[in-house]
């Protein structure tokens, strides 16, 4: 999926290739997450497992506007980010099953994976903690002058943590190249944003620090891409941070064991049927005659094959050797 980030285009010239690329990238995340849910159901994945289903347009749109040296950091809801950063589906799935072939040798699990090669700085389990860390990645971009911007993803719930505002202040004060991407999926676990946030225009939360912000239709990959291009350009040119509030939605429970009683079935169904980012894009492609249905079907099969291969690898890769319990605590110095 790393291909998408290379497939950069000016906002004005979004062609069929770009649209089809987005479709494929979103589809791969969707299929991967469905498979992860299935493996969880089979007892192959344990503990917490937070699926990204419904939110795919956010990370795919962001990554397609990303620069070569940009870095990414997010919370525990991290599978989509990892795939969109070009991390290998096999390694991610094997980490979910806790096997040696996983990105963290099975020692991190769903919420804790890293790829320095892809400049993905983790999955973080403590709500909000990734925000100052990502601000620090931005600090390092500026310090080294590598032209990178850090994409810091956080949930609507995380936005209430004090350290977020400490980060906003420093990022604005020091004009750090950071784009804060609030994935407002309307809920922090079982608490709706109306019940946890004073003032629901979350993109304005940086106003006191002079950080520009805007709300974006996070169910439209093109809208995300356009907003991302603008925000990243702002940060990259030395103007400091930018806030994007992505209005999105998660279809599944907060984690696997969430019966989701805090919202109605109708609400979920309505989002899926009327706003699904993948279906919307697919219909647009077909209606405009930009692609043959057969091509999309073939793409479907390819994606399924990748995901099946990942699932097989995640089951055949052995568990880490018991000696791994004692390794990676400190570096030999």
């Amino acid at each position, binding site marked *: 999926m790393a291909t998408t980030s290379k497939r950069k285009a000016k906002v004005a010239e979004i062609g069929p290739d770009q649209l089809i690329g987005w479709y494929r990238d979103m589809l791969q995340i969707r299929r991967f997450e469905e498979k992860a849910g299935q493996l969880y159901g*089979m007892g192959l994945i344990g503990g917490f497992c937070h699926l990204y289903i419904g939110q795919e347009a956010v990370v795919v749109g962001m990554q397609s506007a990303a620069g070569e040296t940009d870095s990414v950091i997010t919370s525990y809801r991290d599978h989509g980010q990892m795939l969109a950063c070009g991390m290998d589906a096999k390694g991610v799935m094997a980490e979910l099953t806790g096997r040696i072939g996983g990105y963290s040798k099975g020692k991190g699990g769903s919420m804790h994976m890293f790829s320095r090669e892809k400049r993905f700085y*983790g999955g973080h389990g403590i709500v909000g*903690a990734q925000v100052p860390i990502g601000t*620090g990645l931005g600090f390092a971009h500026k310090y080294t002058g590598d032209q990178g911007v850090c994409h810091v993803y956080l949930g609507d719930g995380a936005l209430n943590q004090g350290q977020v505002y400490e980060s906003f*202040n420093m990022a604005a004060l020091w004009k750090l190249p950071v784009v804060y991407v609030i994935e407002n999926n309307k809920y922090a676990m079982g608490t709706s944003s109306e019940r946890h946030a004073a003032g629901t225009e979350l993109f304005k939360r940086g106003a006191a620090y002079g950080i520009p912000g805007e709300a974006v239709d996070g169910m439209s990959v093109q809208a995300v891409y356009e907003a991302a291009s603008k925000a990243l350009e702002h940060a990259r040119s030395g103007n400091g941070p930018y806030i994007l509030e992505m209005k999105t939605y998660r279809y599944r429970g907060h984690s696997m064991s969430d*019966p989701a009683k805090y919202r109605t079935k109708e609400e979920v169904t309505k989002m899926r049927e009327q706003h699904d980012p993948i279906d919307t894009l697919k219909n647009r492609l077909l209606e405009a005659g930009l692609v043959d249905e057969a091509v999309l079907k073939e793409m479907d099969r390819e994606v399924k094959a990748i995901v099946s291969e990942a699932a097989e690898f995640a089951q055949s890769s052995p568990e880490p050797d018991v000696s791994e319990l004692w390794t990676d605590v400190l570096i030999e110095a």
Partner: protein
Amino acid sequence: MAIEILMPALSPTMTEGKLARWLKAEGDAVKSGDVLAEIETDKATMEMEAVDEGTMGKILVAAGTEGVAVNTPIAIMLEEGETAADLGKVMEKAGPSSTPVAHNDGPQAALMAQAPAVAAPAHVEKEYDKYNRQTVREALRDAMAEEMRRDEGVFLLGEEVAQYQGAYKVSQGLLDEFGDRRVIDTPITEMGFTGLAVGAAFAGLKPIVEFMTMNFSMQAIDHVINSAAKTLYMSGGQQPCPIVFRGPNGAAARVAAQHSQDFASWYAHCPGLKVVAPWSAADAKGLLKAAIRDPNPVVVLENEILYGQSFDVPDDPDFIVPIGKAKIERPGEHVTIVTYSRMVGTSLEAAAMLEKDGISAEVINLRSLRPIDIDSIVASVKKTNRIVSVEEGWAYAGIGSEIAALMMEHCFDWLDAPVIRVCGADVPMPYAANLERLYLPTPEGIADAGRKVCYAK
């Protein structure tokens, strides 16, 4: 190929459940995401969604069935183009599920307590040709300045470290020499700037985070432990965090409970961190330089009261104190006194008192609390057969408790008396001067403990 649908696990603890209701009947078309059935777990009723598209072929477990084990086939779905004829093939192999289930047969023994990282054999202190008289404050500043000259990635941030020259004047002159790109005043925002520094370290820079005092590091302890100490492990060795957390620790003077606390055992408790606690100016310079060069997160516990004290510091650009090595500050034969930071001085006073009673005390300055130099302590106790530990912090789960346990494990047969821990009083630090004096270990109290383990009174 027709697809077998298995009874799902819908919570981390579920092993079986009730198939409450089917929402699709045989022959119904199924889209991915459609709800197939409702399943009652031990905690809630959950919906089971379809992953694949197709047609419901055959329902194997009727609605209302209780105690359906996870992974039991409950239905068969037909994919596009398949007919009921394809059902047979799957049904044959349906039988007992062939799905592999993760299992963990690692030996339980591996989970049992193991001694923490133990350093290599006792080392010999190097002698230098020339020494300079310096305060601990100056030594710390020089350590930072030298390492910042040596490595462009090293930078200092914290409250008042730049323009004010440090709340305790430790960073004096650094802003002038290195500029505001590398000596950075932060807002009063510990959790934020600590997390930020961890992020910068993830990216390969080498931050020195100054906490105005270690008491305020509690605001940020989440990042010290959860972000800095654990990430290397959680990333399977991929993501290092070369960072130094430093600041004055332990009792200051008359600042009361919230500003007087020894956090040594808090930080030393955690794998993934190194923890050092210098006493002399030479310790301070050598350990801080080692900490900055170390590729791991290192907590440097300084002491405000020691900042102004002067000691001889080797005049050698390569001088460094290796992390994990204790120093015998005073050799002796009858009792070993193990301690760190300001209590080294107090223990040396106690040793002088004991000398008058004919008791020769060996004083070990731990310098490093994690890893701890167990070999030096053991070697000393094999000689003296008696040991007293001294710390400002509370006894409960303190550094002395760890030393006592290590003695049980490493030299039980060599001990002629039980270990005595001399610690801070088991109360929050009082403000009143008289009470404060009663709180901390004194030379008299340490000497008493020395006499006690020698059965001399």
